[in-house]
């Protein structure tokens, strides 16, 4: 078969990406939010549909909700209508979240809220529906047709036509109707649209509900083609975002064309890797296509991506400087040392895990807390550290303290490379790039047997310094104190370095870049330099943590899943709940993380906790997003007596919204009610 025929075969996957992209674009144009949870929301709707059809039960993904028995299995139309009603409710709830507590939140808060929704929906689906494949009855009748010699299942072609039709309808809606015009207007300037009588809040509700119902329709049509499990749709968001980026988050028609194109390109790459022997070793190339597309899209159109004339954006979360002395770090380290010695067995191991994860959280503090760069791929850097350690220490025989440092430097080099596209994009677009990077590297690098050492696996020799054995497993059982002390020393040094960074000129420059890049540039700060420094430093710390993870799992083998997309999102969850802007937040994040102290204790004392861990994490992220993402640490700091007193003494802050308070009341009501009377 020829490449053209393979391109046609790629229409099936392409239609799926295009459909998801359409929904993401619709929600974005209407509300300004990039919904990373779009795939997960589609998944939950189709599960509801599938269970209605197979068992006649209404089983919604809310923990503790009863399963309603509606009688016999339902037919296509009743099941679809009920599932779409659920979709509408789900979309409306998201709208309430985004337009209510998160109305004026920072982009960062919105991104993590959607990540929280995604985590919650996936984990609840796993709990209520199981994780095994579910068959979804076909909505489009099946048959095989021939197109220029290629045998194509007819439903793919019908799906492609449906998706193109939806795109054209949406494009017409936006161009020709008043509602569409109002949505476009609100995207340009919410104030102006409000003055003209259109409530941006109501328009946002419309697009959220419409977008989620569209997600449900797509998923019901598509699920018979793919298989259905809690996570498969989530990952379709990545190529979908690539398509939306290529369409500059603006044109529905270009978006669909791009989605179809990505699918067709992947299919052609499949044929290439079967035809050409050398390509067979490039496993994951096909999966890397969306990432490459995204990078190209950003390079080509990055500068002209539309912003949004929002009404008011809150100030970024405060990143308070810590005290001038080394008193607190010294006390905490001493406590840590006592804890290592006093605990044993499982508790000691959980403590070590908490310390390594705290280090990973610190890397996020530098990147996201100080400089405001959203990274959904932090574990990728850790993975580079871990795998390169194996290459250096086991493969090349480089001795202990040098091998992990070299591995961390290798990770830092990757961080430097990732910084380059980051220079052209910011906010949510950067989040998209890093998400695609996480998947691309997991598929293309970590899964590649040549890199990961094939089967004998990725082994790491025990660290020894001057004859002192620092490996984690003590002879005769238990865990070595020396390993714990080594991790504690690394953590303390990095924490002190980060504290000093925060108090230095560079740290202040970082916060300035976070608050307002143009103003920082006007003040003479090199934005490019700061961003590159942030990514490189953050990747170095994460790489170092990756080497410690590798040592901690000594005797085992590193696996690509430990450093993939879902691992990165889990780390993000812990880091944000702990507190992304302070070192103490990073430490708390480590305590909260899965496998750490809190998780160990909870698993011991609460039966079945591990099934609910991710659900709690997802909800926690949403709560953190609402309460400004300062996390647990931030709440504690804000409520310290001296800070409370300081806040009471402060004059009320004037934001841009209240600066307009001098104008007559009638012009202020649009923000609340959506109409000028």
């Amino acid at each position: 078969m020829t490449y053209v025929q393979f391109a046609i075969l790629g229409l099936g996957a392409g239609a799926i990406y295009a459909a998801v992209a359409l929904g993401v674009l619709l929600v974005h144009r209407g509300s300004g939010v990039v919904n990373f949870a779009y795939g997960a929301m589609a998944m939950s709707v189709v599960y509801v549909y599938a269970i209605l059809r197979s068992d006649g039960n209404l089983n919604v993904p809310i923990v503790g909700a009863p399963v309603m028995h509606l009688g016999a299995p339902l037919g296509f139309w009743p099941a679809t209508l009920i599932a779409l009603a659920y979709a509408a409710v789900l979309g409306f709830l998201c709208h309430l979240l985004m337009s209510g507590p998160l109305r004026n939140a920072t982009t960062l808060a919105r991104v993590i809220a959607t990540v929280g929704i995604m985590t919650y929906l996936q984990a609840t689906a796993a709990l209520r529906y199981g994780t095994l494949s579910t068959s979804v009855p076909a909505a489009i009748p099946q048959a095989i047709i021939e197109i220029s010699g290629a045998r194509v299942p007819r439903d793919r072609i019908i799906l492609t036509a449906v998706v193109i039709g939806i795109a054209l309808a949406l494009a017409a809606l936006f161009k020709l109707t008043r509602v569409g015009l109002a949505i476009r207007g609100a995207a340009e300037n919410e104030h102006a649209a409000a003055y003209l009588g259109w409530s941006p809040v109501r328009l946002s509700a419309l697009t959220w509900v419409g977008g989620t119902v569209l997600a449900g329709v797509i998923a019901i049509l598509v699920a018979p083609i793919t298989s259905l499990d809690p996570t498969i749709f989530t990952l379709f968001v990545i190529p979908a975002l690539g398509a939306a980026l290529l369409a500059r988050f603006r044109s529905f028609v270009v978006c669909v064309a791009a989605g179809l194109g990505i699918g067709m390109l992947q299919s052609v790459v499949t044929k290439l890797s079967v035809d050409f022997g050398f390509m067979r070793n490039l496993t994951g190339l096909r999966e890397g296509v969306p990432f490459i597309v995204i990078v190209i899209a950003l390079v080509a159109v990055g500068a002209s991506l539309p912003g949004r004339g929002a009404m008011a954006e809150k100030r970024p979360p405060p990143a308070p400087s810590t005290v001038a002395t080394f008193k607190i770090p010294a006390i905490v380290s001493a406590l840590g040392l006592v804890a290592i010695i006093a605990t044993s067995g499982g508790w000691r191991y959980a403590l070590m895990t908490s310390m390594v994860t705290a280090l990973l959280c610190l890397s996020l503090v530098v990147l996201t807390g100080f400089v405001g760069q959203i990274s959904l791929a932090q574990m990728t850097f850790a993975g580079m550290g871990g795998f390169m350690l194996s290459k250096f220490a086991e493969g090349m025989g480089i001795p202990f303290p040098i091998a992990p440092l070299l591995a961390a430097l290798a990770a830092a080099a990757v961080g430097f490379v990732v910084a380059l596209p980051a220079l052209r994009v910011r906010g949510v677009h950067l989040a998209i790039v890093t998400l695609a990077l996480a998947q691309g590297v997991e598929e293309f690098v970590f899964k590649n047997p040549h890199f990961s050492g094939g089967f004998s696996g990725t082994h790491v020799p025990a660290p020894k310094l001057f004859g002192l054995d620092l490996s984690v497993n003590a002879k005769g059982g238990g865990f070595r104190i020396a390993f714990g002390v080594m991790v504690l020393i690394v953590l303390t040094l990095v924490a002190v370095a980060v504290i000093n960074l925060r108090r230095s000129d560079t740290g202040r420059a970082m916060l300035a870049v976070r608050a307002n890049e143009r103003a920082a540039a006007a003040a003479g700060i090199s934005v490019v330099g700061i961003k590159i420094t942030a990514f490189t430093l953050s990747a170095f710390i994460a790489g170092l943590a990756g080497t410690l993870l590798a040592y901690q799992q000594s005797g085992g083998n590193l696996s690509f899943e430990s450093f993939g997309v879902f691992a990165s999102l889990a780390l993000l969850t812990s880091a944000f709940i702990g507190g992304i802007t302070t070192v103490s937040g990073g430490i708390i994040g480590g305590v909260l993380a899965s496998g750490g102290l809190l998780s160990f204790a909870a698993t011991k004392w609460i039966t079945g906790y591990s099934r609910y861990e991710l659900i709690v994490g997802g909800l926690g992220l949403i709560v953190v997003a609402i309460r400004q993402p300062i996390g647990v640490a931030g709440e504690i700091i804000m409520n310290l007596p001296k800070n409370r007193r300081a806040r009471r003494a402060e004059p009320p802050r004037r934001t841009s919204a209240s600066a307009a308070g001098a104008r007559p009341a009638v012009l202020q009501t649009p923000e609340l009610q959506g109409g000028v009377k």
Partner: protein
Amino acid sequence: MRWLAPLAALTLLLAACGSSKKSSSTTTSSSGGSVTTAGSSGGSANKATGSPITIGFINQEGDPTASYEDWHSGADAAIGYINNELGGIGGHPIAYKFCATKAAAGGDTCANQMVDAKVPMVMGGYVFNTGPMLPLLKSAAIPYISGAGLISADFASDGNHYFLHGGSLGTFLGVVSYLKSSGIKSLAILHSDAPPGVLAAQVVQKGLANVKTQLVPIPATSADMTPIVSSISGQPDAVLLLQGAPLCGSVMKTIADLGYKAQVIVTPGCVAQDVVKVAGKGAEGVMYLSSTTPFSATTDPDIKLLNDSLAKYTSKQPSARAVEGFALVLAIRDIITKAGGASATAATINTTVKNSKNVKQRLAGPYSCNPPPLAKTPAVCNDSVEIWQLKGGASSPVAGGKIFHGADAAG
């Protein structure tokens, strides 16, 4: 060392493969981190009433990417049967302390809990995160006994862990052995693109030197199988599918839709009820390997026992993994009995398994850990596999029920 790759591959595939009917109702957590005496329904032959013998039990559950609650159900069914109808172990009921792992995490946490609980042994279901787990159990000298090894960390022996079913290496090489004997001339191997899958496919290819083979990788996040299946050129005699559920369902369906007439051979998880539903007519006539008796062999008396026990003690559905759980618990009962029953210790249990030779077990071929059937993977104690065929919803043995041994192909 070359064979490690395929082992890992196969095991990964088999493990990922084994699936069962979804439990669609809200699951109540059977036991997380606390001691449980499973099942108790009244009125059976021989109820155990002594003090419980508590072992550790680790299984991968609650992970959105893959969870194996059905293995757990099989184990619960066996424990219910043993405690209520066989008098437990010498009058003592079996209980377990349970801990769930995720695909890439939790192995160390769970191992630590078992060490803290000082259990005499740990039973493993499907656990992908054995990497950090096994060294911890080894350093506490608590033996780990499971059915199918899944990843490369499992196969090397540390004298402390054992796999009693031929699930891993055995099945994989058993397939090569069967294919050699079947006389096919051309074969397409569709394999998972994760490293184990790639290497497994390459080893099968090398093992079938006289057969014209083509390798087609299946990416894990494929949205549509059509381009991938269409990469098969020509009409090969057979298609070997080294890919687990849920993707293998879509692949089987697409193979049938696109009109390939080849004999399709799959791994056991791909004939689970829900995968068969997804595959539709693609599942009809499919052959599969199994190291344990397939759950669809409903006339087999042991399968009947499994189904009865599942209904009596768990109200869960049968599946391939439930068979494995059931079989392993029965085998472990025999091991603990031989190791001293209620006074068995970690050391006696370890010695008993380590020295086992041709020990019969129900629902699977006999196992030998001394010496293990394949010298290169000493932790795997079983290399036997049967080939079955699914027709009209029921399975019947192929090749007259001949047992294929991985060792025959390893040469």
